[in-house]
């Protein structure tokens, strides 16, 4: 199956929820929709599902226009942020419900319910009621119900957002294995860069109802086309330094300067924004080319395996990611090292002109 969205707009009252959305999705593909809260992720899924009608544009399934066709007539399964189950039905009956509605035979239902429950490690909870289970288990039931009918389009709207991080971690691993074996088009929305990277496949980065960039997830991560995409696709936030290129050198605010090396060679003179992800700022020197920035510690956040040190540097806040758990005193002075080979370079229109994996192209045509 293939699903295409053509020039979709969705306007509610005077608010534009989606604008000029064009997408082609193929069977067996995994598609992540990455965007912040209120970017339009849920609106987009609802249109794909046929729950909402677009204001303009067409939805094609296998080149057939299905724009007005009811959700019931399409082969679709959807999982929501909230754990939605039938409270009075056992786990078994919850998972069986879509098959029952579809009129499957008893033996067939039994086989598929058990198979799906096993996939999600809830096979020993089948006789229980949802209310007796933890949030993580309840969401597993909802996911099992979506998977059991083998729908051609599987839509998941931030399915892990309401779970504790440990449950999220476990379910994320299971979901990956499940997606590997699916023939369906999987569309998965998230606000988290790490989750997007883990799911891999293709990515659609959206913001304020518009698509900013599409491509394979790892390519987009390595070449975010605008500063906005880089912000949405970096957690902790990407660090920006404004600098001015003069001749073969770049001068940053705060008096630091360095030579334009590697991928930045040939960048024409003028003001630019230099972006560097927090894991590429280090507290010890990693190469001879490293430049030093001196700042003041504002806070050290610890996420369990890494320490994120927020540093005030010349009116800019930088975040340094360090492996392991370390203690830093607020207010202490600190030296940050950055390898120029790690910079993303954005022009005054916030467009990417050079990245560590894509050298600057001197284009006299522009």
């Amino acid at each position: 199956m293939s699903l295409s969205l053509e020039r979709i707009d969705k306007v509610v009252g005077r608010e534009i929820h989606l604008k000029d959305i064009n997408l082609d999705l193929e069977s067996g593909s995994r598609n992540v929709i990455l965007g912040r809260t209120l970017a339009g992720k849920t609106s987009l899924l609802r249109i794909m599902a046929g729950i909402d009608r677009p204001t303009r544009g067409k939805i094609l399934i296998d080149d057939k226009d299905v724009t007005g066709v009811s959700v019931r007539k399409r082969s679709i399964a959807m999982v929501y942020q909230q754990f939605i189950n039938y409270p009075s039905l056992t786990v078994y009956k919850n998972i069986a419900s879509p098959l029952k509605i579809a009129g499957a035979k008893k033996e067939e239902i039994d086989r598929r319910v058990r198979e799906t429950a096993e996939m999600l490690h809830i096979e020993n909870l089948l006789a229980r009621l949802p209310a007796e289970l933890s949030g993580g288990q309840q969401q597993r039931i909802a996911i099992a119900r979506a998977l059991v009918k083998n729908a051609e389009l599987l839509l998941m709207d931030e399915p892990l957002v309401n779970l504790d991080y440990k449950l999220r971690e476990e379910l994320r691993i299971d979901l990956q294995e499940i997606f590997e074996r699916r023939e369906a088009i999987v569309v998965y929305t998230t606000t988290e860069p790490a989750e997007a990277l883990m799911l891999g496949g293709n990515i659609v980065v959206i913001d304020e109802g518009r698509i900013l960039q599409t491509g394979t997830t790892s390519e987009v991560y390595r070449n975010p086309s605008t500063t906005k995409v880089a912000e949405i696709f970096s957690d902790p936030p990407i660090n920006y330094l404004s600098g001015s290129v003069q001749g073969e050198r770049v001068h940053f605010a705060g008096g630091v300067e360095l030579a334009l090396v590697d991928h930045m060679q040939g960048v024409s003179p003028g003001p630019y924004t230099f972006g560097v992800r927090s894991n590429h700022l280090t507290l010890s020197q990693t190469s001879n080319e490293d430049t030093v920035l001196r700042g003041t510690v504002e806070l050290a956040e610890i996420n369990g395996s890494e320490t994120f040190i927020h540093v005030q540097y010349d009116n800019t806040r930088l975040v340094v990611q360090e492996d392991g758990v370390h203690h830093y005193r607020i207010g202490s002075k600190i030296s940050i090292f950055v390898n120029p080979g790690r910079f993303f370079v954005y022009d005054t229109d916030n467009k990417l002109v050079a990245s560590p994996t894509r050298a600057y192209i001197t284009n006299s045509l522009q």
Partner: protein
Amino acid sequence: MAQIELRDVAHSYYANPKDESDYAIKRIHDQWEDGGAYALLGPSGCGKTTLLNIISGLLTPSQGSVFYDGTDVTELPPEKRNIAQVFQFPVLYDTMSVFNNLAFPLRNRGVGEKEVKKRVLEVAEILDLSPFLNKRAAGLAADAKQKISLGRGLVRSDVAAILFDEPLTVIDPHLKWNLRRKLKEVHEQLKLTLIYVTHDQVEALTFADQVMIMYEGELVQTGTPQELFENPKHKFVGYFIGSPGMNFLPCTLEGNIAQINGAFIELDDETAVLGNKIKGKLEIGIRPMFLECHAASVAGGIATRVKAVEDQGNFKIVTVTLAGHTLRARLPEDQAVPGNEAWLRFPIQWTKLFADGRLVK
């Protein structure tokens, strides 16, 4: 400010508890030093809110006693314990100004207006609330409201401790770091006893000097964030702190070599001596970050089959199987990615031994 001590505290919500599993708090004997910043961290249902309520006096424990600076307060209600609390949702008077909200706890205790004004202005300054003092609380954003809730605790000079129960739940993610920073500053400046309850490791580890990990009604480890990460004393701590959690492999021990179905892993001598004396189920534990994973054969490397490689952008998680067990290794960005096979090395200083779930040390 006070030192808080729990002596053999246990609590059951049942009138006649029969066995261990009927207890929400199993047996806690611990103390919170005056002026310390503590976090109580654990998954939902581990008993952390029950414990907080016992400390604050909202709940009288079924067994044991609670001491503040050496005085038994077990039977005293919260208002007699001089405890301030900040809950998940801001608790304040919407129709009152920020100033009056902050002044309320003092006026309630009959403090003179001159002193009220002095304290309120001081606290507002610390919390960056000075520009809002004349505004009505109703119109403010969630983070400002939560700062007022905190401020209502801080204005009282007699407060023994401030207890926080998941205070950042309603705060937008990008504002959280700001509040975390503010809490740390408040602690540095005022040296109050702060106890912070959460299920979120980032909040606990960022906020506290000492983190207490709760699991099934027990405090399984108290330590600095670094200690919990590097030296978990209980399997649960290894699992719960860090993403992904610690790897565990059942093993037998011969001399200082741990054996896992034909694979041999060296332990340090001290651990091995202790391990050989202990009876119980033995397991090796190592963090994914410390487990070396090589794309080609290396000296002392154990060959394993690669199950999956996940690109996390700035690192990769390699999942391998070793003698039927799944292990995860965190591969730095610039290191070669293994194909079907990977060779593992277990650095001796990061390879821990656990017996019946507890660190051998």
